[in-house]
C-alpha cells in the first residue's frame, strides 16, 4: 500500500489498475487506471482526494473511477467517471460534467495524403486561421438571432445541417445523431446570460487547450476498423477540439448555484461546493439534465460550424473535401442502462474528461459502425500525437476511457519554464506550422505541461478500457 498526497491510500489491483479501499464516507471504492508514472504526482494535486469525494455521492454504484489522464479539477477530478442509480435516489452533479458541457472532439478526413497538400500547407493554415474565430470574447462562423439559437439548443447539429451548414452524413457520424432530444432550454433552465453568451460564439474555438489541427494518419493499428471508420494510413485529417463556449459555462455556473440551494432539501451534504448535486429524478435534477442537453446540442452545432469553415478553407486552398469520421464528447452525463450486481439498472453516468467507448455490436452505434465499434477520439498535446481508439467488449467503467493527455503543470508553471517563441520555432522546424495565440499562450500548452499521450493510451488499453485503431500526428495547428 502506498501513500498519496499524504492521505489517500492506494493499492495495486492488477494491470494498470489501482484501488482506493472504501473508508470514511465512501459508498464505493475508488479505481484508478494508471501506470505508476501516470498517478497524479504534482505537489498539491488533489485529484485522488476528489476520487474519494465522488465515491461518497448518494446513489453511486460500482466505483469512483479515474482514467489514466486524471488530474485535479473542480469537485470531480478531470478524468473522472461515476454512475449513480437513478431509481435509488442517485444524484446528478454538474461538477461531474464540468463547465464546458459536451466539450469534445471531431475528426474529419480529407480525400488526400500529405504530399498532395504539402506545397500549399502554409496557405491552408493561413485560411484555417483566418476562418476560425478563436480567443476571448465574441466571434462566430454563424451569426444567429434568438430564434435560431433556440432551435440550436433544441436540435443541435441537426438544425445547423438543415440550415445548410453541413450534409446528412455529418449527423450520421455524430454521437447521438448530432442532437440530444431531451434538451429543453425553457426559461429557468437556460437563463438570459447563457443565451446572450451563446448568441455571439456559434462556430468558434475559444482559448486554452482548444485547437484545430491538420493531421496525418501516421500509424494504423487495425486496418479493417480504421477503414470502416473512414481512415487509411497517410491520410490527411482535421481534428477540432472545443465545446459549448460561454453558453455551457454559464449553464453550469447557474445550475451549480441552483443545486447548492436545493440540495439541503434532499438532505445532501458535500465536502466541496463544486460537487453540488440533487437526485437525478427530481425537478432540479431533470432541469439540469435538460439544460445540459441543450448545451451539448450547442457544442455539436459549434463543431459543425467549424467543420463548415474548415471545408471552405480546404476548398479554397488545396481543393479537397472533408468527410466526418466522428464527433464525440468527453464532458457529459447520460442516462444509460447497465448491469449492476446482476440486475439491469438505469444509471446517470457522469464522464468528466472521459470518453464513452462503445464496443462493436452495441445497439447505439450507427449501422456502418456496428462491426467497428465507436470511434473514440483522443486529442494529444500540441505538437505530439492524437489517437483514434474504439471500445472493447466488457469495457470497464461503464464503457469509458481517457480523453486526452491530462495536465500535470499549472499554466503559470508551464509559462515560466517554457519560452513560447522558442517552442514555436521548434515546432516549425519539425514541419508543424502554428497559427494564432501568443508566446505565453503557446507556452501554457507546451507538451511538457501534460502527461505523455502514448503512455496514457497504453495504460487505457492495458487496463481493458479500449483498443488502438490509429495514431495521428500534427502537420499544422490553429490554437485557440
Amino acid at each position, binding site marked *: 500500500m502506498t501513500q498519496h498526497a499524504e492521505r489517500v491510500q492506494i493499492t495495486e489491483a492488477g494491470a494498470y489498475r489501482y484501488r482506493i479501499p472504501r473508508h470514511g464516507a465512501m459508498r464505493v471504492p475508488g479505481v484508478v487506471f494508471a501506470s505508476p508514472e501516470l498517478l497524479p504526482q504534482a505537489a498539491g494535486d488533489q485529484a485522488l482526494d476528489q476520487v474519494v469525494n465522488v465515491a461518497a455521492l448518494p446513489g453511486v454504484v460500482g466505483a469512483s473511477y479515474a482514467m489514466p489522464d486524471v488530474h485535479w479539477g473542480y469537485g470531480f477530478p478531470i478524468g473522472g467517471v461515476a454512475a449513480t442509480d437513478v431509481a435509488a435516489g442517485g444524484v446528478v452533479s454538474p461538477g461531474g460534467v464540468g463547465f464546458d458541457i459536451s466539450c469534445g472532439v471531431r475528426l474529419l478526413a480529407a480525400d488526400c495524403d500529405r504530399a498532395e497538400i504539402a506545397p500549399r500547407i502554409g496557405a491552408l493554415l493561413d485560411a484555417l486561421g483566418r476562418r476560425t474565430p478563436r480567443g*476571448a470574447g*465574441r466571434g462566430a462562423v454563424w451569426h444567429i438571432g434568438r430564434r435560431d439559437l433556440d432551435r440550436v439548443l433544441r436540435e443541435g447539429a441537426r438544425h445547423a445541417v438543415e440550415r445548410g451548414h453541413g450534409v446528412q452524413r455529418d449527423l450520421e457520424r455524430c454521437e447521438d445523431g448530432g442532437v440530444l432530444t431531451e434538451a429543453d432550454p425553457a426559461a429557468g433552465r437556460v437563463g438570459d446570460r447563457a443565451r446572450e453568451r451563446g448568441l455571439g460564439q456559434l462556430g468558434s474555438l475559444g482559448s486554452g487547450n482548444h485547437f484545430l489541427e491538420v493531421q496525418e494518419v501516421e500509424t494504423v493499428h487495425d486496418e479493417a476498423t480504421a477503414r470502416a471508420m473512414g481512415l487509411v494510413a497517410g491520410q490527411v485529417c482535421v481534428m477540432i477540439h472545443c465545446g459549448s463556449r460561454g453558453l455551457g459555462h454559464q449553464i453550469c455556473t447557474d445550475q451549480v448555484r441552483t443545486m447548492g440551494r436545493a440540495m439541503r432539501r434532499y438532505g445532501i451534504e458535500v465536502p466541496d*461546493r463544486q460537487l453540488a448535486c440533487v437526485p437525478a429524478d427530481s425537478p432540479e435534477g431533470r432541469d439540469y439534465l435538460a439544460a445540459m442537453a441543450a448545451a451539448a446540442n450547442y457544442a455539436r452545432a459549434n463543431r459543425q460550424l467549424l467543420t463548415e469553415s474548415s471545408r471552405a478553407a480546404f476548398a479554397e486552398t488545396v481543393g479537397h473535401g472533408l468527410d466526418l469520421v466522428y464527433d464525440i464528447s468527453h464532458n457529459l452525463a447520460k442516462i444509460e442502462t447497465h448491469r449492476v450486481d446482476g440486475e439491469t439498472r438505469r444509471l446517470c453516468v457522469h464522464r468528466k474528461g472521459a470518453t464513452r467507448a462503445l464496443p462493436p455490436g452495441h445497439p447505439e452505434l450507427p449501422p456502418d459502425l456496428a462491426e467497428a465499434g465507436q470511434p473514440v477520439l483522443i486529442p494529444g498535446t500540441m505538437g505530439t500525437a492524437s489517437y483514434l481508439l474504439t471500445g472493447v467488449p466488457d469495457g470497464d467503467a461503464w464503457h469509458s476511457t481517457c480523453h486526452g493527455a491530462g*495536465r500535470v503543470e499549472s*499554466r503559470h508553471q508551464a509559462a515560466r519554464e517554457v519560452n513560447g517563441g522558442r517552442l514555436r520555432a521548434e515546432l516549425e522546424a519539425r514541419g508543424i506550422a502554428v497559427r494564432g495565440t501568443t508566446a505565453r499562450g503557446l507556452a501554457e500548452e507546451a507538451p511538457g505541461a501534460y502527461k505523455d499521450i502514448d503512455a496514457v493510451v497504453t495504460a487505457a488499453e492495458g487496463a481493458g478500457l479500449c483498443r488502438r485503431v490509429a495514431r495521428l500526428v500534427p502537420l499544422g495547428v490553429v490554437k485557440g
Partner: protein
Amino acid sequence: MATGGEHPGGRGGHRGVPHTADLRVSAWGPTREECLTQAVRGVVESFADPSSGARAPRRRHTEIHADDDPELLVALMDDVVYRLDTAGEVPVDVDLDPIPGGLRVAYRMADADDLEPVGAAPKAVTLHDLALGRGPAGWTCSVTLDV
C-alpha cells in the same frame, strides 16, 4: 508565483497561485473594495495586458448584489467574464463603492481586441476554495476561474 503585486499608488496587491485545472488568484487590501479591485486586476492581467490598450477606455456602471462577501466576489468575477464574452470588453481598471447588500461598480473598459493577449481567457468562476474575508492585516480573497 506573483503575477501582479503592489499596484502603484495602491495599498493592496494580487498574485496568481498554481492550480493544474486553471487560474487561481489571491488578492489583498485594507478594505473589501480594494481587495476586490486587486482581484479584478489579477484576473485581467492573467489574460490581457491592461497597459497595452491604445484607445480611451469607456465607462460602464453597474451594481452587484450578493448574500455574503464570498458570493459578492463570485458575482463580480461573473460580471467580468460575462462582459468579456458578450461585449468583448475588458476592465483595465475598476472603482468599487459599497452599497447595502453589494457594490456599485464603475469599470474602465477597453476592447479585448485592442489589448495584448498574454494568456487563456477566463470562462467561469468556480466555488473551489472560494474566500473573501477580513483578517488582522486587512482583507484577503482567493478565487479560481476556469479558463
